[in-house]
């Protein structure tokens, strides 16, 4: 009995091993731990084929929230990190997981809400004032609540506005604990305000009656950074190929390709690599 | 290693304080057909299962030719359970499975299954699913399967209960013919007329005990106990 079970388990293990070799990806590839907005907006579908065509290197994208992406990369489960939370990225480098962080591109956050606009914030140029009005009106606000780049940004904006959201959590302040898309779906469903990056909003298909109410405040600036992983921390990572991708992204070709990407005639991301080397 | 004689000593089985089986001593040897009779709940089926080593008695022991039963000697032993258990395959495959279990190779199993089906007049149903046969056909098939392996000892637990007369006749003929060929048979009969027809000797059980064991004719003509007399007379025993 014991022997049979052992042989069955061995068989299963062999089968598993064989199955793992079946998939037909033989070429070189790197794994990119990324925030979701760059994926959901279709940017990668635009960029990656160009890069792969040129270098033969396939870039595989795991799109999760910025917090999770940094965590995964810290576990050495990625060759490169592309997120939008500069302070967290700096910590990642300072801790020794990251080798170098560089600016790559930017866009901006927008405050989206129902057209009924219960807090009457439409057209405000000042995000600070808008958030104060939402808090005063106790109008529903959907927060990511997932430690993502957008969530970190939102927290810093509330802090600046002097609103203690923790006290209102579960009342008008609602943390979905989900990705941007899921949070947008929830916000649409409950007529709530929500902070989102512009790229995700433009590519989002389920806007229903929601529209951009506040935009253009310099505080809504959204910087995307690319962080290489330190091979001393993660000996298994494919540093050389990852570096090639970074060089291309931040070089003239990659930057031009980023600027070229348009959805519904709108430019979603603005390259700014030259400005931000740190 | 032969299976006969089968002996039992001080068998005792109880459940919830009630003795289901209480047999001081029993030997099955020689030849012929023994018929087990007795009211429902007398312990007939349980006795056969304990002798067949399908059920372990609480105390006492069963010996096959002087040593405890072992798996290997099941090839010399056949049994048809009260509700025949047929595998989910064709009638033919059921017999072949039994033959291969006792060590026949493929072609031998095929040949012997063929003749077993013939003897049981089951050839027309040979390839039908065993599980869709009628009650009589199932009993016939189960008996044919048990006989096909040519055991030295055969137990039958009410092989004709609730069967039509034609099936009953077929089955009794098969049993008689096997007995004539020297197979030792122990059969539980619910029907006293059948006991008379098949039995060389009768064992009468009541309340888990063997009350009387006698050749068929004397048992029916002059039963040695009050209980046996009442049972033969058709009275209800409690």
């Amino acid at each position, binding site marked *: *009995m014991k022997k*049979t*079970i052992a042989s*069955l388990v061995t*068989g*299963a293990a062999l*089968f*598993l091993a064989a*199955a*793992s070799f*079946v*998939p037909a990806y033989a070429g070189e590839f790197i*794994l990119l731990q990324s925030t*979701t907005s760059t*994926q*959901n907006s279709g940017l*990668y*579908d635009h960029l990656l084929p160009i890069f792969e065509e040129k270098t033969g290197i396939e870039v*595989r*994208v*795991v*799109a999760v929230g910025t917090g999770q992406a940094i965590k*995964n990369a*810290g*576990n*050495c*489960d990625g060759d490169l990190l592309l997120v939008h939370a500069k302070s967290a990225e700096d910590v990642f480098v300072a801790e020794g997981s990251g080798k170098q962080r560089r600016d790559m591109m930017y866009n901006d956050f927008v405050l989206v809400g129902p057209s009924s606009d219960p807090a009457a914030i439409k057209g405000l140029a000042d995000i600070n004032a808008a958030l104060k009005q939402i808090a005063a009106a106790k109008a529903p606000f959907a927060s990511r609540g997932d430690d993502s780049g957008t969530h970190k940004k939102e927290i810093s904006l509330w802090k600046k506005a002097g609103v203690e959201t923790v006290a209102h959590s579960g009342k008008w302040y609602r943390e979905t604990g989900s990705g*941007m*898309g*899921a949070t*947008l*779906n929830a916000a649409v469903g409950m007529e709530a305000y929500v902070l989102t990056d512009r790229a995700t909003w433009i*590519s*989002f*298909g*389920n*806007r229903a009656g929601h529209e951009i109410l506040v935009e253009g405040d310099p505080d809504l600036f959204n910087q995307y950074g690319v962080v290489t992983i330190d091979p001393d921390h*993660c000996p*298994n990572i494919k540093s050389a190929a990852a570096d090639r991708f970074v060089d291309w992204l931040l070089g003239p070709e990659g930057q031009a390709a980023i600027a070229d990407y348009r959805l519904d005639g709108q430019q979603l991301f603005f390259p700014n690599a030259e400005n931000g080397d740190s | 290693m032969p299976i006969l004689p089968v002996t039992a000593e001080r068998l005792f089985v109880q459940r919830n304080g009630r003795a289901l089986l209480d047999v001081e001593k029993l030997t099955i040897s020689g030849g012929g057909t023994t018929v087990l009779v007795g009211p429902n709940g007398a312990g007939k089926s349980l006795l056969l*299962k304990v002798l*067949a080593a*399908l059920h372990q008695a609480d105390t006492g022991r069963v010996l096959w030719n002087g040593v405890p039963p072992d*798996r290997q*000697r*099941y090839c010399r*032993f*056949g*049994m048809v*359970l009260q509700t025949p*258990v047929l*595998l*989910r*395959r*064709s009638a033919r495959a059921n017999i072949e499975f*039994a033959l291969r*279990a*006792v060590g026949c190779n493929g072609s031998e199993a095929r040949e012997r299954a063929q003749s077993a089906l013939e003897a049981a007049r089951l050839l027309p149903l040979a*390839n*039908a*699913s065993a599980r869709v046969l009628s009650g009589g056909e199932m009993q016939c098939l189960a008996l044919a399967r048990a006989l096909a392996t040519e055991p030295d000892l055969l137990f039958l637990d009410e092989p004709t209960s609730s069967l039509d007369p034609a099936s009953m006749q077929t089955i009794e003929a098969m049993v008689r013919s096997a007995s004539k060929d020297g197979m030792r048979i122990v059969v539980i009969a619910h029907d006293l007329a059948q006991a008379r027809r098949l039995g060389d000797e009768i064992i009468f059980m009541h309340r888990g005990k063997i009350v009387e064991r006698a050749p068929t004719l004397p048992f029916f003509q002059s039963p040695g106990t009050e209980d046996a007399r009442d049972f033969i007379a058709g009275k209800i025993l409690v």
Partner: protein
Amino acid sequence: MQDFAASFFEAFRLVLGLNPGLLEIVWLSLKVSMTAVIIAAIVGLPIGAFLAVARFPGRGLLVVTITALMGLPPVVVGLVVYLLLSNAGALGPLQLLYTPTAMIIAQTILVVPIIAALAGQTLEDLNGEYRDQLMLYGLGSLARLRTLLWEGRYSLMTALLAGFGRAIAEVGAVIIVGGNINHVTRVMTTAIALETSKGNLALALGLGIILVILAILVNALVFLLRAAAERSAYA
């Protein structure tokens, strides 16, 4: 209602257009889930068979535990497998994270308790019926188990299909260990999750409709195979 109409339209558009991207994720879904079910059967059926016939102290507790594990949350399984396969984890050197193999491992873990518990129940009932007869054949415990598995093969199919249903439908585990990487680890359910997060609800639901149809087709196929096997067994 408009959304539902649009979803069916999307589903038809995807299927009729033989969208190559769709074929790719359908194929990967089937490959991953079927492999997981096959491995889970190899592991789970003997466990079920053992539980069905063996009597030992703690058996009841084990049966209850395995039955309860049928409700394992996929996210938890995904997380555990992620932690094991991560480069920071014990099995990191195997480099299996974000591969179909990782997804197969996670789904196998989800499916084994289902197959073991359902098969155990089926075989226990069957053993009640067959035990004496199989003893009379002089079969050893292994041969008896083998016969029980074969005799119960049609009922056991249902256990395998239940496992397949669980595997093909779950998203929580595969999205964590597979990473939903386009062309590599994107399956039906993770694609649905992605389209939902993009707000493409009609497309997401359309994919969902295709997934359901796929599940029906697989079940129908097994049903037909079974009918054919039963026919040929008695032909």
